């Protein structure tokens, strides 16, 4: 398997960010790791390098801040660390946190499990829809019948 360290960091972040045991789909339900690396493999090489740099930075930040690699930390501590990155007053650190949050959320929200959970549907058939979303052709008309405040 390619990039074992980067994969471990991503999986650890996904586990902390989208834990099991809530009313929403977890990282496992949403296949956050598998889908992320599929996406990564579709990126041009320069952009893929940026992703590796980001994951390496997360690992390094954990090491500097806690003395342990990111993957060695318990999930709650990993989540705290990701939140601390996002809240930093120092822009480059905050950028790392926001980028990680963005990638995690992007991967989660675009998963079929989350689409089903949210109730996403389409108004027209899509020839290449891998998600097989429900089609509600009259949805716009029905929605228009309700008043907006």
């Amino acid at each position, binding site marked *: 398997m390619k990039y074992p360290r980067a994969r471990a960091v991503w999986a650890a972040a996904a586990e*902390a*960010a*989208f*834990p099991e045991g*809530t*009313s*929403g789909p*977890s990282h496992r339900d949403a296949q956050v790791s598998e*889908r992320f690396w*599929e*996406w990564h493999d*579709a*990126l*041009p*090489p*320069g*952009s893929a390098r*940026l992703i590796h740099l980001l994951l390496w930075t997360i690992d390094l930040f954990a090491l500097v801040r806690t003395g342990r690699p990111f993957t060695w930390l318990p999930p709650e501590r990993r*989540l705290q660390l990701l*939140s601390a990155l996002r809240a930093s007053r120092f*822009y480059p650190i*905050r*950028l790392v946190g*926001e980028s990680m*949050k*963005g*990638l*995690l*959320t*992007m*991967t*989660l*929200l*675009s998963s079929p499990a*989350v*689409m089903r*959970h*949210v*109730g*996403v*549907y*389409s*108004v*027209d058939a*899509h*020839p*290449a*829809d*891998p*998600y097989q*979303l429900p089609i*509600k052709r009259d*949805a*716009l*008309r029905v*929605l*228009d019948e*309700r008043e*907006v*405040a």
Partner: protein
Amino acid sequence: MRYGFPDLRQGFEVEADVVIIGSGAGGAVAALNLAEGGMRTVVLEAGPELRPEMMDKDAPRFMARYYWEGGLRAIGGSAQIPSLQGRCLGGSTVVNSAIMLRLPDWVREEWASGHHLEFLRGPGLEESYARIEARCHVTPTPEAVQGRRNRVTRAALAAVGMPGGPLPRAVKDCQGCADCLTGCAGGHKQSTDRSYLPDAERHGAQVYCSAEVERILVEGGRAVGVTGRVVDPLTKEVHRRFTVRAKRVVVAAGAAHTPVLLLESGLNPGGLVGATFHAHLGGGIIGMMEEPTDPFVGATQGWGAISSEIKGLKYEGLWAAQGLLLMRWGGLGAKFLERLHEIRHTAVIAQVYRAKVKGSVQRGIFGGPKMRLQIPRDEARVFVRGIRTAADALLKVGARFVMTGIHGAPEELRSFEESARLLELDVAPSHLPMTANHIFGSVPMSGDPRLGPVDPDGRLRGVEGVWVADASLFPSGSAVNPQATIMALSDLVTRKMLHRTIPTG
């Protein structure tokens, strides 16, 4: 005739009267005009052809394949600002919301007087707009596909005194799928791969996809063609080289790539290529409504209004694949997962601001464009004023709370008092959740050679046989979505190539 990667993996050499670099808003219009005018025309597009069956709903994967830098392109400078541009046949016209607005009179006058572009005062530009609008079926977004999300935007903007109107878009029989940013699988959007290139091909144009131009070939002070490499659209692996011999080169690679290509080719009249760069700063304000809005249906951007408070600022309703649009939404952890169902209640107002920013484009270390923008703090404050108005608008129509994404502000604003406090923040550009998808002005057109490297006929100064026909030409931001004006300027430039006169009125 159209060639894709499988046809070209061994490289190719062809001759033509004119070679056009780029197949987006500028390149496609140029292709039709020049092919129709009898020129042997070759169009080179770096990205692949994107057919409806390839437009899948997995938005991240789609972007990785069909956007430049896999959708991770960012403008540096005072903040890292994401900037999305399509990398496929038809360019960004395939992956934008197809909004077609004419240049506001005040911008037109600013360009005409500030850059000695007299032709902008005549009827020629209006005639070009009319031709383009007719071909692209530009019509106001119909009421039937607005959907509840756009209707919330309409009510919200009206509540703060900006009634606005349905946005005119290049779409025929829109179904309201809200999938514009991942391509119109139903084939309703009139992107240039549908509205222009097929007719250009019928007039003999040859279109080569997956052909990335690296240099314009110049001999004895005049262009003689271009050279580049064939790139695998999936693996991005570089295959064989290609050369197109032509005495006329039209550069329409977009405001990011056009200056880099010219610089790589040693073409930099007056040192002005890439020395300027402008962008519209975009941002989204998310309102959480009491009632479901089902935001994932209804026209992507169906309703918009020009700000009555801030010159050059425009509001629009917006949706995109939730994985892209809501990347920054909420936090992480169990609480975030428990709130996912709220997505059905969201309404998003996007603001697009023509900031007074200074920027530049250079070649980056990996060969691509390196764009920089320095956004002054006072412009960041104007941006926040715009956000505050949008937040108030959503609160006025009953949003339970509003999310702005501004660093240092409360995550959720629940009252007008809280939104008013946004104005007290000491904001820097890096505090703001901005995007900049409208980019321009990196090779501006000007009657004064000290202000722009391109003359009013679209010709690059200092070399024979090179024209520019994309958003690089804009002297500054257009204040509205740029597609219609890119197409109109390309129309004027290429008609002049054929007929030697630009209508001046």
